[in-house]
């Protein structure tokens, strides 16, 4: 039985059945690379879960609406009515989510508020993460900065963030700008330390040390091995700072040192709705729902993206 198989193989593998392949330069190059692309895999892993697709679509629609509505609609979110008949109206055809205690349209206010709060949070996130990345990169590559930066970090993070915010909002007259300054002046140092640690650990990881020993120029290591990692971290951190900033604005409004009362922000709308909740609960419903969806969605997106950007989770 066994010898028979061997005999058959001999018949099959007769030399005249083979011919030498022609050397093909492009084909030989192809074998050396996989068609793995970091970003394609990250995005594919990210969107693999239906839940994430749903949340991204939802948040996309909310933000689109928040920017389109103020641009297209003629309703003024601050228009006060002198006619008491139009105050505290329940939801109806004219006012989809009713009116508040001085006759302002809640549907319009909610979208204006979403836009303003989101823009504020987005600018804060960009500034925190942007400054944080640059400072973190310099810090990671420059040991001399250590003593100063660590002391700044200790001092700033030792003051609880709420106390710091309360303090700054208390001494400044709050407006978009001062609120931005208050939050952005603290956030960057936390991000800087985070990025410094990540850059250090990526730079000193074995494959980069090995690559450096093989003579890869620094520029290539930075552009191919460090920046892609950092970009995904930047996206993740930005997504996570946004809900935090929105929450801070709501918190400051509650304490009474948030945006001026006539500013249309989610924090103001929710707190105004809160004061009339006992009699007119519907006034708080829509703004709160939007607020919850936005904060949860960004939080989830940030975390899911962090998972997806980790090459160990790629397929």
């Amino acid at each position, binding site marked *: 039985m066994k010898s028979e198989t061997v005999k058959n193989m001999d018949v099959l593998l007769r030399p005249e059945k083979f011919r030498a392949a022609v050397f093909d330069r492009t084909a030989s190059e192809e074998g050396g690379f996989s068609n793995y692309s970091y970003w394609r895999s990250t995005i594919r892993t990210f969107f693999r879960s239906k839940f994430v697709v749903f949340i991204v679509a939802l948040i996309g629609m909310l933000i689109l609406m928040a920017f389109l509505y103020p641009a297209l609609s003629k309703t003024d979110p601050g228009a006060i009515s002198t006619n008491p008949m139009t105050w505290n109206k329940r939801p109806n055809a004219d006012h989809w989510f009713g009116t508040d205690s001085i006759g302002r349209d809640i549907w319009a206010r909610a979208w204006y508020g979403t836009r303003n709060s989101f823009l504020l949070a987005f600018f804060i996130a960009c500034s925190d993460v942007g400054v944080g990345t640059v400072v973190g990169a310099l810090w990671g590559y420059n040991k001399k900065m250590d003593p100063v930066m660590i002391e700044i970090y200790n001092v700033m993070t030792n*003051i609880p963030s709420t106390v710091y915010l309360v*303090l700054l909002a208390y001494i400044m007259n709050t407006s978009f700008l001062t609120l931005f300054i208050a939050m952005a002046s603290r956030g960057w140092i936390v991000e800087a330390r985070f990025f410094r*640690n990540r850059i*250090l650990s990526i730079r000193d990881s074995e494959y980069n040390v090995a690559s450096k020993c093989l003579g890869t120029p620094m520029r290539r290591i930075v552009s191919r091995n460090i920046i892609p990692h950092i970009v995904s971290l930047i996206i993740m951190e930005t997504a996570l700072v946004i809900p935090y900033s*929105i*929450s801070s604005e709501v918190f400051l409004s*509650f304490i009474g*040192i948030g945006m001026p009362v006539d500013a249309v922000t989610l924090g103001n709308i929710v707190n105004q709705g809160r004061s009339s909740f006992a009699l007119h609960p519907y006034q708080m419903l829509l703004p*709160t729902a939007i607020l919850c969806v936005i904060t949860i969605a960004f939080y989830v997106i940030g975390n899911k993206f962090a998972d997806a950007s980790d090459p160990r989770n790629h397929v």
Partner: protein
Amino acid sequence: MRAELPGLAGQRAYSIRGGPESLLRYILNRTLRSILTVVIVFVTVFMLLRFMPLNGYFTDEMLKVSDEQTRMAYLRNQGLLDPPFSQLWRFVKNLFAGDLGRSLTVYPKVPITILLCEKIPVTAAFGAASLVLGMTLGLLMGMFMARYKERLGDTLGTFYVVFVRAVPSLIYLFFIQVWVSGVLKLPLVFYEDRPESWILPTICLSLGSIAWYAIWLRRFMVDEENRDYVKFAMVKGLSKKYVLRRHLFKNAIIPIAIYLPSDILFIISGSLIIESLYAIPGTGGLLTKAIQKQDNNLVQVIVLMYAILSVLGVFLGDLLVAFVDPRIRLTEDEG
């Protein structure tokens, strides 16, 4: 109020060389550094507070009666127009004499020391109750989530954590106050003589820390799960439950323990939101009121108190971990 845990436990690590002698040096070093940090924080906050609105230095009646000139004379008389550093010096001198100044608008002319002596016990009682509740439930939940990783319990726990951490706390705290109090027939605000009015504020106070303890314990336990000693213990034939409890838990709890002193100190800080919602006469509610009524003296003392408490908490946390963790190494790691 609590800072995020910095990534993994390792990032905060110190490395040990030598025996108890270097531990002593570490403690000394750390103490001196904390004192420096306290001084810097104190001076910074005090200087920032010099920018407080001037109106906040007057009591209501003074604002009503006096004209611009008398007000300025009053400010000068009180030394509020002096250079900031001489104001700082006077404040520190008074501080060591046990005088923190007087409240202006919230409780006109009452010494702040007396106010704090009244408020701190109330807040501390709530804080202690919620710390115990939060830690017990949080650690149990974290262990449960790690035990049933990626099953229904874990998913539900994650939903809870995401909700508590992402949604502004004001919103769910408010709805708990309005709806849950109605459903459970509990009082809407705090009454000193009704013990059942303690229940909701305590639970509300611990919601955040339950989520915090749960998510970090879960994460550290999952990290530890793949270590060799765990695999070895399982191979020896120990049950998963036993290994989780006796081997894994102790190692996973250390990076969390670093925040325990902060938590203990901060039981006297109270929550700004919860104390205002339930009208609890504590320090958090006091700060909110002081801000709303622009009482500069009160704001200054409470903010400084919070800042110093938190520096102290971080310091004690580092010391605690240096003693508790046998693996600790005592020179700072390179990132």
